[in-house]
């Protein structure tokens, strides 16, 4: 009894019509644009590539968490404050209190995940919109971060993490670089340039792949796998799609939501730890506006703000678009304030395209 009014859909069209299409188009568009206007500025030389992949990876790490949480039907506006908070916790514990860095990192993760659980618990138990609950934590955590920092050091920037992290086993997992041998070999055969002067003479300009990028890739693959291939992924979709209907068939909706808040907090802490290890310092104002940037990546990636629909791959591409635009304008020498204009334009275009695609897939009218 196939309905004769439903048109047969071609394979090509079916392959095209997917949640990530908007983000794929956005990615192609920005790459084409910057190849044209900044192709000879070094943006696509090894050092330039390293520059924008790191920025994109940073966005991707928090976007993966925000994406899964948004599909489960909730927001977390405290991500940015959480990043600042986690960084200060690591710096105070390791530099000021003299704890081993690995322990400081682990405590920061435990505290962040507990805060994520508290966020989720409050949302689930009070039934309040997560927008309000996490907005409260945006202020609470930022205030706590500045207060703790000033209380212990009388400053809002705590340096010296690099020295105490020397020889630590956990710090390189966040701040290290891998495949150094491979990149040295690339330099030897002339694929990438080497420094010609100074203390690093003869070393390649790009020494390897920063762990930050590895973290981003691992989180993207994990998030995508969890969402599309597992039972829990089905529960995430169901929870965001219609929590009451999901509850009636036995999906543990509250557990799914709380776990996703915890995962978002985990991602924020990965971001914070990698940043602290890279800069060797923590600052109380780190992570400002990151919660919105994460949400922008997710929305460019095709997720529905009201939950129940989205893609981790899309969110990752959204992060790539974000990173390339931000660094590309710098490389092309354009006025950097134009960055926000450009980003806003891409955001609105992606959302319009995504809405149209989603209507086609889901039969919404």
């Amino acid at each position, binding site marked *: *009894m*196939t309905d004769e009014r*439903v048109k047969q*859909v071609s394979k090509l069209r079916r392959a095209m019509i997917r949640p990530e299409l908007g983000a794929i188009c956005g990615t192609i568009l920005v790459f084409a644009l910057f190849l044209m206007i900044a192709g000879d500025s070094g943006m696509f030389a090894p050092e330039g590539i390293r520059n924008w992949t790191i920025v994109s990876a940073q966005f991707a790490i928090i976007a993966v968490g925000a994406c899964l949480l948004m599909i489960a039907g909730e927001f977390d506006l405290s991500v940015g404050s959480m990043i600042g908070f986690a960084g200060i916790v690591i710096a105070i514990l390791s530099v000021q209190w003299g704890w081993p860095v690995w322990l400081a990192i682990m405590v920061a993760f435990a505290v962040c995940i507990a805060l994520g659980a508290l966020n989720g618990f409050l949302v689930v138990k009070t039934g309040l919109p997560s927008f309000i609950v996490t907005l409260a934590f945006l202020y609470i955590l930022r205030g706590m971060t500045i207060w703790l920092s000033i209380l212990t050091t009388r400053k809002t920037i705590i340096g010296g993490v690099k020295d105490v992290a020397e020889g630590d086993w956990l710090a390189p997992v966040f701040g290290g670089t891998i495949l150094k041998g491979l990149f040295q070999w690339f330099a030897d055969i002339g694929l990438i340039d080497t420094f010609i002067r100074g203390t690093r003479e003869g070393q390649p300009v790009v020494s390897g792949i920063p762990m930050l990028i590895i973290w981003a890739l691992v989180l993207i693959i994990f998030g995508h796998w969890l969402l599309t*291939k*597992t*039972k829990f*992924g*089905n*529960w995430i*979709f*169901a929870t965001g*799609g*219609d929590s*009451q*209907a*999901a*509850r*009636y*068939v*036995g*999906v543990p909706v509250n557990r799914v939501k709380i776990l996703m808040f915890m995962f978002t907090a985990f991602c924020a802490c990965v971001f914070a730890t990698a940043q602290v290890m890279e800069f060797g310092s923590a600052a109380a104002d780190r992570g400002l506006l990151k919660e919105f940037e994460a949400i922008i990546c997710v929305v460019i990636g095709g997720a*529905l703000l009201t939950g*129940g*629909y989205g893609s981790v791959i899309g969110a990752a591409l959204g992060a790539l678009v974000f990173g390339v635009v931000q660094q590309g304008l710098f490389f092309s020498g354009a006025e950097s304030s134009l960055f926000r204009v450009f980003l806003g334009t891409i955001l609105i275009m992606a959302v319009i395209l995504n809405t149209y695609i989603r209507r086609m*897939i*889901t*039969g*919404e009218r």
Partner: protein
Amino acid sequence: MSTPIVDMRDVETIVDMRNIEKHFGPVIALAGVSFDVRAGECHCLLGDNGAGKSTFIKTMAGVHKPTSGEILFEGKTMSFDSPRDAMEAGVATVYQDLAMIPLMSVTRNFWMGREPEKKFGPFKVMDFKKANSVTMEEMKKMGINLREPDQAVGTLSGGERQTVAIARAVYFGAKVLILDEPTSALGVRQTSNVLATIDRVRKTGIGVVFITHNVRHAMAVGDRFTVLDRGKTLGTAKRGEITAEELQEMMAGGQELAKLEGSLGGTV
């Protein structure tokens, strides 16, 4: 026949609700309702809006706990703590508007809460191959040929969505299927499809509870009819013992509607 000699009533009756009362604070939603469902029958529960139909079926489905009264499931006293409990026992409910999640695919909806899994190295993943083929097959049994199992439920019509939900309940071994106003939002042809599905389900030995306020839909498939009014039953009648006009009158409380019906030429 080697069946032990027992009361036939107990053998057939799957769920027996006795004197169910449910109070929400000062409001008495149900004031002693008795209702039973037998294997292979379609028992219609009729009543106007606010009669207590929803509260009653939610009590049966484990959403609400009765304030007083007894629920017998296959002859034994039962107390469902959650919808999940009731589902495990074999009481499945298809809610009018909560049947399906439109943004998700048919397969994902069909298996929601009971996803089949297989081993993937040290991990467990959803067995989409099995999930898709079972979904297609079960939908075919209900008379719906899906274009593909991963098409979103939002692309299906209202009647088809109800049918997916019914197919899901049947596949997962429901003994009692509660349908909450499955036809109220549907057009003529879709309604007849759903009614045909109810008939098909009943023939497999499942007890169907069909909630509706449309007497004609009830008369089309019902074996027994119970009318609920202001939290009380007005009685249960078998098929053939009662006419559509009498049912309609009981539901509406008689008088006023009868007058209105006169002026509308008997079309309500």
